[in-house]
């Protein structure tokens, strides 16, 4: 991450644009925008070195509201544009904003390959489990059987698990947060920014027009502590009003237990290890859903791996050291030549 701001420290207002924000009043995107604008000055990166790239959908309007460089591209293709940009300009801080339809349906292929390449880009996927901009069709993350405009009899499709996709794609930073938990969201965005490599953050986001309350069962303030669990590295997976509930592993199956009941102590609980060598634990946690389990948020997995742009730069440096910098003359006369006089 380039840390190159000169002069007075930027504020949240420095990252707002003069464009009228056109999301529906009450949309979860407002909360996410506010947190990202709040985090940006903390990163110490000059505005001109930050680029937000998006595809199509409600979430993809995001770049218009960030006073940085921004590219509102075409449906599903933001990771491709971010890839070309980051490889060409490794010093830039490149962010991709996408949604469940944009990132996991039409752009699923690009998302998985961007993550496997491990460019130093940050991907924020706003998951509202619905198609908002096209007015209410089911998305690849809509729950099975959901009735929508395009599925009046209920969807017949199994939803995809975004974190599972990220883990299977060898992503080196996999996290989840929620639009309305502002403190948690900003801390996760900050951690994603600090990660060296591709960071994937799924953000549960409420679409108050077409899928209102999609996450209320577990994100609503009054139930959150009972139905969600914040993952913390090196700490047991504990949740609940009085922090008495936890997750214990039985073989490869997580189970909800209560500390103090049936002889369960804190020592019996699963200890979260986001830096585990294999993302097996992270995958297991990513499968936990309400009502059978509390819904985990936090950093599920992170790993250190060389970045694509870094490897390419190295190859170029090594080739130049070995062969010398290329010149047109040498280039044109490469191969077998002959002279006619």
């Amino acid at each position: 991450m380039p840390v190159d701001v000169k002069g007075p420290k930027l504020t949240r207002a420095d990252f707002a644009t003069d464009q009228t924000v056109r999301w529906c009043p009450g949309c979860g995107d407002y909360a996410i925008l506010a947190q990202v604008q709040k985090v940006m000055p903390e990163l110490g990166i000059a505005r001109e070195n930050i680029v937000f790239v998006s595809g199509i959908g409600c979430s993809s309007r995001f770049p218009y509201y960030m006073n940085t460089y921004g590219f509102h591209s075409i449906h599903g293709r933001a990771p491709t544009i971010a890839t070309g940009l980051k490889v060409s300009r490794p010093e830039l801080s490149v962010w991709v904003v996408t949604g469940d339809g944009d990132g996991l349906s039409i752009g699923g292929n690009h998302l998985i390959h961007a993550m496997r390449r491990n460019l130093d880009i940050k991907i924020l996927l706003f998951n509202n489990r619905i198609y908002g901009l096209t007015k209410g069709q089911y998305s690849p993350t809509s729950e099975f059987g959901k009735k929508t405009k395009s599925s009046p009899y209920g969807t017949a499709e199994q939803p995809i698990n975004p974190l599972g996709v990220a883990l299977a794609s060898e992503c080196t930073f996999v996290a989840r947060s929620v639009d309305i938990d502002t403190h948690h969201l900003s801390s996760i965005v900050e951690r994603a920014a600090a990660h060296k490599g591709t960071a994937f953050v799924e953000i549960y986001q409420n679409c108050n027009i077409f899928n209102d309350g999609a996450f209320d069962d577990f994100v609503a303030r009054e139930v959150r502590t009972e139905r969600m669990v914040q993952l913390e590295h090196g700490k047991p997976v504990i949740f609940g009003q009085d922090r008495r509930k936890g997750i214990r592993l039985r073989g490869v199956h997580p189970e909800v237990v209560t500390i103090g009941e049936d002889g369960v102590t804190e020592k019996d609980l699963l200890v979260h290890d986001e830096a585990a060598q294999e993302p097996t634990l992270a995958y297991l946690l990513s499968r936990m859903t309400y009502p059978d389990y509390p819904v985990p948020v936090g950093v599920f997995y992170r790993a250190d791996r060389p970045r694509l742009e870094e490897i390419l730069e190295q190859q170029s440096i090594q080739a130049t050291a070995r062969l010398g910098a290329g010149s047109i003359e040498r280039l044109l006369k490469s191969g077998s030549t002959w002279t006619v006089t």
Partner: protein
Amino acid sequence: MATTTDIPLPKTKREVIDRAVIRFAGDSGDGMQVTGSQFTNTVALYGNDIATFPDFPAEIRAPAGTLPGVSGYQLHFSSNEIFTPGDAVDVLIAMNPAALKTNVGDLPAGGALIVNSDAFSQQNLNKAAYASNPLTDGSLKQYTVFEIPISTLNARALAGLDMTAKQIDLTKNFFALGIMFWLYERSMEPTLRWIDEKFGKTPVIAEANKRALKAGYAFGETTEIFHTHYRVAPAHLAPGTYRNITGNEATALGMLAASKLAKRPLFYGSYPITPASDILHELSRYKNYPVTTFQAEDEISAIGAAIGSAYGGALGLTGTSGPGVALKSEAIGLAVMTELPLVIANIQRGGPSTGLPTKTEQADLMQAILGRNGECPVAVVAPATPADCYTMAIEAFRIATRYMTPVFFLSDGYLGNGAEPWRVPKRDQLPQFDVKFRTEKDGFQPYLRDPRTLARPWAVPGTPGLEHRIGGLEKEDVTGNVSYDPENHEKMVRLRAEKIARIADDIPALQVFGPASGRLLVIGWGSTYGAITSAVEEAQAKGLPVSSLHLRYLNPFPRDLGDILKRFDKVLVPELNLGQLRMLIRARYLVDAIGLNKVQGKPFRVSEIRKAIDGILRG
């Protein structure tokens, strides 16, 4: 490189000829492409003018010995300037019955036919659907047939090497090459050197190939079956340094040269596709140049990344063939809307759909000019010869960066794989073009245009004070803000069209080959240049009133095209499609152009165009 003098004095009769057309044909596993390109490099180094036509199946290894598995490589070499790989073959080398069957039709009566008689087993004859053995049933009596047991002779020459019979058999193409080197008095040196470079790490394979080559040569020299051998003197080419180059190599070099001239790094995003993959292979070798190659997960990602790189200030390039262009269409629209420089290289092949992957065609012209949603103009250029790919690649980027627009570069399989000698340009012969980024903060507007070119500023991330947002939604004039205003939309549509139209002020005037007016003008574009020029040259030599014109800029058309068309009574447009340029010319200039159209996956023969010329002039 000077030619070597290792050729012993001939015992047989030598005939000096001014040109020859040879074709190597065999199974796709027989190494015919390697054999052909080795012969090509050798005669090119010797100083002949050359034109080649590699023709191979889409299958990597179709069942051995079958008709679909036949791979061929035709080479025309001459002591004069030539433009095509030749209509008729003088010497055909057929490594098996299937190769004989599919190729003998191009050998005129009296032509020389060298066959590997070992391959004419009953089984192979069956695979090639021969009812009887053509070597014995008299069906080849119109040709001069040389039956040579190439497999046996080669195996004998390699006896004692630690190799399996199968490995030994794989070297028989070099025996055939050796025969041809002897027949045309060519040095084995360049190929021997190539073998060392290629197989240096496996000495036994290197030794085997060398022995095979030398054995073939010695066979030609010592047996008395060839009564004559031939010499084709070097061509009188203009002074300079030359190299042999294929269209795809020239494309890669041109793009790299553009990057050097523009002083901007090149970014190549591509997904492997025939016949464009060689550009990716070529560019990925040049790590010591400012070029990044990116093998994307698909065609869309390839162009998306190229657009991303252009947004960041690199020369963004994506290369593909027609099916890939279809996938890239939406992204091309994005580059038009965001007005970023981008080059899309389409190495055309037979279509529609997967079509004929390894065969040539020119049927993507309309796709390049019109194939997107909305009013979506882009510039289109097309190289005329393999070496011209270099020049037009540079042109493509000159236009793209000067006008902030995507540019199509329309090559095809015939140009991409075909080779010709190329006089390497000197540095001072290279075009200059300045590429400037906007850095001035005062008065900056993302869509404030250059009054002359109508280009918007190239303002790249990292520039303080120019933070702005672009995207695929319609832009408000000047500010670039999202706008749904009806009047603004029409204004922007017209501005984008006008910007492309103005490129016509910035491209060279056309040159008519032959009289500037008259009864017939033959007009072409792309890879038909060689066949059209040869046919028109022939006709002119017979005193026929015909001229020709070749378009390398297809959108916009050169300013003088309309006037030139009006100076001729008739206009003939030969194309390897059903009449796409003809349709544009008729629509644009109201000229009743006549089409000559061929869609067989093969280039035109000179004679086909000649026949059309004669027909029109008679009629």
